[in-house]
């Protein structure tokens, strides 16, 4: 599902340095249609997560209509040894397409697909208001407000999953991992299977030891792929920390580098991984009800359970890739050094969830 992108150096570029602001301005000058007098001011390096480096600033330019524009922007650049293989061109195309929909996503201004300007693959987005702090949200003492924000997350997920992949994101179906059958329609089951196979390949390519339990879990996932009634645009990393919020309102979904076509239940399962689950404000069942009330397609409970198994296997694969990047010296991020130690926690839960799925009445497995 992911294309290749240029590998940044292990020591990293200098995203906060004086050259970075000029690079950001150059990128905007190249790609804003008809823009003149492009400048970027108030540039500062901000936290962009483990996978990307972020540079924030205020861009100014004159449009062809002579109107002067002033926009807060953020440039996200792939961090060395990132545990997420981003395809900025795909992310750019999706965000451009989503700007025509009601999905809560930032506008996109430019992308440096091959790192020709910035030295590594980068994307320039509208900088939205709000905060992304997952700890502040998950430890909130204002449970009523946190509950309302969690319900708004359910609504935002329903809005995203309402996107018609063929109509709203034209020409990107296969690039987003959708498997198209001979009749031109997306084959839902094969599309879900392709996603499992992708993460299985990540695991097999990065593991430092055989890990037969995880190997067995991926086999189990492939042997029991659900056939969703429809596939949708799936964020792929939808969770606290990857959306901006103000009070009880979700402002924008962030970090679209794992966006793909898949089973909407995949996003719902990912939101409720124990590490970042908003369970204490709204349990999964109530969250799903809110999601369905907001227009989300009815959620098959067996499929949701299946995707909770997948979420743990995927997180384990991401952790193994992160640990491998540190072991190989392609990242200096100490947060990734010990990620392999988290794998057993994911596996223990995945085995429990798979056993729960196996115990479901066969009629529930549809």
């Amino acid at each position, binding site marked *: 599902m992911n294309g290749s992108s240029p590998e940044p150096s292990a020591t990293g570029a200098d995203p906060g340095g004086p050259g970075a602001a000029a690079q950001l301005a150059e990128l905007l000058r190249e790609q804003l249609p008809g823009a003149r007098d492009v400048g970027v001011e108030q540039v500062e390096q901000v936290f962009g997560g483990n996978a990307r480096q972020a540079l924030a600033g205020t861009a100014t330019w004159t449009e062809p209509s002579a109107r002067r524009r002033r926009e807060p922007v953020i440039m996200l650049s792939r961090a060395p040894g990132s545990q997420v293989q981003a395809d900025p061109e795909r992310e750019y195309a999706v965000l451009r397409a989503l700007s025509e929909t009601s999905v809560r996503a930032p506008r996109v201004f430019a992308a440096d697909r091959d790192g020709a300007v910035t030295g590594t693959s980068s994307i320039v987005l509208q900088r939205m208001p709000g905060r992304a702090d997952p700890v502040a949200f998950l430890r909130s003492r204002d449970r009523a407000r946190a509950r309302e924000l969690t319900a708004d997350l359910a609504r935002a997920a329903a809005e995203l999953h309402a996107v018609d992949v063929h109509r709203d994101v034209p020409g990107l179906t296969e690039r987003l991992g959708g498997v198209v059958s001979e009749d031109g329609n997306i084959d839902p089951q094969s599309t879900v299977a392709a996603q499992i196979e992708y993460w299985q390949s990540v695991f097999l390519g990065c593991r430092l030891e*055989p890990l037969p339990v995880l190997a*067995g879990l991926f*086999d189990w996932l492939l042997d029991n792929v659900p056939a969703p009634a429809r596939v949708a645009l799936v964020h792929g990393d939808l969770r606290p920390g990857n959306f901006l919020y103000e009070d009880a309102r979700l402002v924008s979904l962030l970090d679209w580098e794992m966006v793909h076509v898949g089973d909407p239940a995949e996003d719902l399962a990912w939101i409720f991984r124990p590490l970042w689950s908003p369970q204490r404000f709204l349990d999964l069942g109530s969250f799903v009800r809110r999601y369905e009330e907001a227009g989300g397609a009815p959620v098959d409970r067996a499929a949701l359970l299946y995707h909770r198994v997948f979420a743990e296997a995927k997180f384990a694969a991401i952790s193994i890739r992160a640990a491998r990047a540190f072991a190989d010296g392609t990242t200096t991020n100490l947060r990734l*050094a010990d990620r392999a*130690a*988290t794998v*057993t*926690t994911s596996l*223990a839960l995945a085995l429990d969830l798979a056993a729960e799925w196996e115990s479901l009445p066969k009629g529930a497995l549809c």
Partner: protein
Amino acid sequence: MLRPTTGELLRAVHIQLAGQVLPALADGAPRRQLKSALHLLRRLERSWDLQATYLEADNLDLAETLDRALRALPAEAGTGYARLRTRFDRVRNRLPEREIAGSAAEAGVHDPGLAHLMTVNHALQEILADLQAALRHDRDLPSTALSPVTSMVSGLHRRLVARAGEAAGTHDDN
């Protein structure tokens, strides 16, 4: 000479870094790096001396379960199982020293005993993964033969994960 132990040293380093260095660092990448290092030091302090006991128990369980599983398969089952049996017997009996030394050096292990345990564990994991793959693709194996072996493997999976979590000091992370 026993004291201070590695655990005592790790704890002391953690206390000093957390008490003296962390407060001096402003928000930013160096502070995040130190916090990650402190988190890692705490986990190592909890688990630094568990590795040998863990691997001994793990190897014993892997070997016993693989032995039972391979014996439970009918004699007329595919030749792939016989090859797995041969590999298994070789690992259980004795691995060539050069294999042990090579993999241990790569993993930064100095103690020859621990290096042996690690190499055996890796080899047994490999045989288990290959047995799982063989069972998954075997369309001729009757369910009466497959079911007990699958059950043995499932039980082993749970024990492997539980033991690895305890050895890594992460078993109560959920």
